[in-house]
């Protein structure tokens, strides 16, 4: 059996066991074991993939499998991976593993919570292994819908409003996306043969430029909503602020990456000429996101808002780099997705843990936490330093690859925009150090805080896993970068033809 199927199977089995579990306290153990298996499996997948490549296999996708499950419309369950999807699967399994441990103390409707959470991750895994547009879209929806329940039920603050807003905006994106996918589908056989949803087959036909230009905005914006494309990012601050910890982690860490991944795997890969023609519009929008998000973060007072705006900035950088359409910049974009995914998951996990103790997220009401909860505070500083692009952490690798790659662009316009985008490294430093200074350092502001306990064992597992991820990539980035850029060759060939 194809190893990729396990990525769907294990979460499904875990969900079933959770539902069948007799006692609540087994639930989280089952979830942890299931997602632990998933993490091991992801590591196995990475090694398998590298071994396949070393053996000389240069196929676009490996470990492929196709099942025709809706023959009349030629919808298939087609799966397969390349270096990029392998990397994204690795990211997802790290984040969901840490997410389970970060929500160890959920006591309200525990079963339902973990089932929804794992259902969400199933959707994400399915999305990354799919090669069929329709199946991909299906998994995409599987990932988005539980989000509504998770925020609406287990959230905090104006949770119903936020859940509604988030879901409706993402659904709006889905609607655009569906139009785009159907458009591509109906032009997928130029010679009058059977229509197909399979990406690899669509890539072989030439879709007329007019059609491409018509459908490109639909697909790109459709995924762009999820990737926090300016000005359609406003679901993000409210959504994150209301979401429970693990959901914020998964959402910012993984779900937003679906947007970036979809943008290049579907919008750019299938509609390359339109991507070339229209890139400049989106380059301006994404460059705006990068700088605008960073400036927006400076004045926020709520920890989650700060991180949400920071995500807008960092995810803007992903889309920006993709649109540069050269190998180095796109390589950087993928690394940035992974790096930001782990980093932001770490932030949201820590914010959740701090909030669980202080019951406030307003930085002005806290101070001197370094003295009280040193472990969590040090983790926060590490996350902050990674976020501002310190060498030794993954953010630096990603940003520098993007900047160098984008600057190699032959066109002066692109290089000037790159310089503008570079300036975000300073603004990022400002808001990160501001938070660290107010929140963690300085004198202790509130004496009630003195009784706090430092991190528990499950919190330590959660944060240490994520920190290991960012430092691992940050110290030895070459294998990841090679794995990704090896797979990018096919895509670049198509984009530059």
């Amino acid at each position, binding site marked *: 059996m194809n190893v990729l199927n396990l990525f769907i199977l294990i979460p499904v089995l875990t969900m079933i066991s959770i539902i069948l579990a007799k006692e609540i306290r087994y639930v989280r153990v089952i979830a942890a074991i299931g997602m632990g298996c998933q993490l091991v499996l992801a590591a196995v997948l990475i090694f398998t993939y590298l071994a396949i490549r070393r053996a000389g296999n240069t196929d676009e996708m490996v470990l492929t499998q196709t099942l025709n499950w809706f023959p009349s419309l030629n919808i298939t369950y087609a799966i397969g991976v390349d270096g990029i999807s392998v990397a994204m699967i690795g990211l997802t399994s790290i984040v969901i593993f840490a997410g389970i441990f970060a929500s160890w103390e959920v006591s309200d409707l525990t079963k339902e919570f973990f089932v929804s959470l794992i259902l969400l991750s199933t959707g994400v895994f399915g999305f990354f292994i799919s090669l069929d547009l329709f199946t991909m879209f299906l998994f995409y929806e599987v990932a988005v819908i539980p989000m509504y329940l998770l925020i609406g039920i287990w959230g905090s603050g104006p949770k119903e409003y936020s859940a509604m807003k988030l879901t409706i905006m993402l659904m709006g994106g889905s609607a655009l996306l569906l139009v785009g996918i159907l458009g591509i589908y109906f032009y997928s056989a130029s010679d009058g043969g059977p229509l197909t949803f399979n990406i690899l087959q669509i890539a072989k036909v030439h879709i007329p430029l007019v059609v491409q230009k018509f459908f490109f905005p639909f697909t790109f914006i459709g995924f762009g909503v999820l990737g926090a494309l300016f*000005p359609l990012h406003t679901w993000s601050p409210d959504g994150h602020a209301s979401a429970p910890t693990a959901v914020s982690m998964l959402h910012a860490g993984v779900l937003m990456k679906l947007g970036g991944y979809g943008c290049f795997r579907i919008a750019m890969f299938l509609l390359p000429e339109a991507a070339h023609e229209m890139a400049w519009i989106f380059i301006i929008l994404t460059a705006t996101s990068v700088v605008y998000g960073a400036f927006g973060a400076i004045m926020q007072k709520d920890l989650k808002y700060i991180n949400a705006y920071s995500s807008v900035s960092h995810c803007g950088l992903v889309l920006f780099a993709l649109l540069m359409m050269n190998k180095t910049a796109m390589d950087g974009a993928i690394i940035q997705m992974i790096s930001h995914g782990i980093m932001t998951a770490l932030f949201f996990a820590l914010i959740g843990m701090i909030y669980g103790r202080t019951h406030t997220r307003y930085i002005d009401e806290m101070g001197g936490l370094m003295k009280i909860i040193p472990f969590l505070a040090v983790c926060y500083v590490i996350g902050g330093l990674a976020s501002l692009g*310190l060498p030794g952490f993954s953010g630096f690798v990603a940003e520098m690859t993007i900047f160098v790659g984008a600057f190699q662009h032959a066109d002066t316009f692109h290089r000037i925009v790159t310089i503008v985008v570079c300036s975000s490294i300073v603004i990022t430093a400002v808001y990160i150090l501001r938070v660290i200074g107010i929140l963690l350092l300085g004198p202790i502001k509130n004496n009630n805080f003195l009784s706090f306990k430092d991190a528990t064992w499950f919190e330590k597992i959660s944060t240490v896993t994520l920190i290991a991820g960012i430092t691992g990539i940050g110290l030895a980035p070459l294998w990841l970068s090679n794995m990704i850029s090896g797979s990018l060759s096919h895509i670049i060939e198509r984009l530059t033809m």
Partner: protein
Amino acid sequence: MIDFSYTILIPLIPFFMFVFLGLAGWKFKPMVSGILGTTGLFVAALLSYYTAFEYFFHTEKILGAYQKLTGFNTVWLQLTDKLHIDLGVLLDPISVMMLVVITTVSFMVHLYSLGYMKGDTGFVRFYSFLSLFSFSMLGLVVATNIFQMYIFWELVGVSSYLLISYYYDKPTAVAAGKKAFIVTRFADLGFLIGILLLSWLTGTFDFKTLTGAHSPVITQGAGVAFMGLSLMTWSLILVFIGGAGKSAMFPLHIWLPDAMEGPTPVSALIHAATMVVAGVYMVARLFPIYFMAPGAGAGLEVVAYVGAFTSLFAAVIACTQFDIKRVLAYSTMSQIGYMMLALGVSGYGGHEGLGFMASMFHLFTHAMFKALLFLGAGAIIHAVHSNVMQDMGGLRKYLPITHITFLIACLTIAGVPPFSAFWSKDEILAAAFHHNKLLFLVEYIVAGLTAFYMFRLYFNVFWGKEKQYHHTPHEAPFTMTIPLMILAVASIFTGFIPFSKLVTSDGVAFASETEMMIAIPSVVIGLLGIGIAWLLYKKESSLPDRIAAGLGGFHKWAYNKFYFDEIYLFVTKKLIFARISRPIAWFDRHIVDGSMNGIAWVTTTTSEKIKGLQSGQLQQYGFVFISGAIILALVFGYLLIF
């Protein structure tokens, strides 16, 4: 050929020490961690001395020139086909010299801190950060390519941040660390863009390729002009901005005085001897390209004028300050200005490269005597528990060793022969004299001011009237005085090292003699400065205050550091925060998000309004149907008739 691959250990030992102390240090007694860290640095220092000995005396010279040797190199990240970031060790005269400087001062500071930081709650943290800094700084100087330099450049920046904010429950320390990081980060943006531009023009990061004297890449980017300068010149100026930020050159200097909030040994290591000279080192590293790239002479002009201006500017401020660490901080800025100036006026090859040699020479001697000054200041602060001159006086009786070593350092910085800075400063003045008479005169003035403010400090602290102390000041323990004595010896004798034979712009030795016509007046000016300080400060009197009052506005202006902090505060708080950031945050919440909510509102309101139509009541439907029919009939009737 000698195998230099072991040199990778020099940065790696502190790195492992950092990781080990950071993760496991809390398991031991603090002193054990401290001794471990110190031992690590001691080994690194021994390795550096051995490397220097082997490099300078046993490697093969080609055409009489020291070669650039690669001790170790590995690809860390492949970016494009041509561009890749390597990590490795490059050995050439300046990097080997820097290895010696850094490991020596760092070892002294480690040793000194065993006494100075004793009993501090963060002792282990302090030592692990010191190791982190040493690792980063060593990695910076041995960089084989400009991107490796940038990587370690950022790492020294963060170690500096961590150590400045070491007393993290003190808001001023936190603010100072933040300021240092953000100002240098801003400068690093220039560095980064400079690197992007430079690598785009030349297609390489590698120092060997970039700075080969006849390398074809140097001629790239000459023709393309922007605002009258070639792109190559722009890239070098941008890179220099990074260096200016790290080296606290005007106008990016504002972080350095505040950085004195960190523990004093940190100030000695990072903010006096090593990190702040990184900018000088970088310009020296790229010197061939600064000098030879077509049209890049303008870049060197910028370096020279910025350096000269900073040295004067900082010296003036140093004369007015009362916090002894701040006086030393401004003095550091002033001395680094000297080094920059020397690079800016230098030529390339043989005696033409006098300025380059002088700059490196001064960097070396400065590291020794400035570290000594700071560590001495630390011993004083340790004794009287205050940073401010007004709280001190007559300390020579209580702190005999500190007093003598401090005096040696003061004489050295004042340029009194035969102490080391006399020789190095003299070379700088000679280089300036042959290139630019205006800058030369500025440096004469600065030499006098330097002697004056240092001896103002010296007389105020060790002479003058005795103050009321909480307890009798006592001499520091031997872990602190031994480094003082070693550095004092170094300050006296390092001037006799024949730098012109070892560290030169093209690696070829040349003969340099002291030019009496320049040296004698400079000594006279120095002695004059000392004399004025002696008159004003040896006995406490009201004379200095009256002079200050006589200078009126100018003194106030200088005392307040020419209001540069206020200008920066205005730009950040009033312009960036209030005029950019806050409006963006508002715009996002109210306009962008507001329009999303607006769409939702329109949808709900409209549906709310029209939902009454679907009431399901037959009478209502009938009524609407009939009224509609009547209206239509009337309309049609009207249309038919008219």
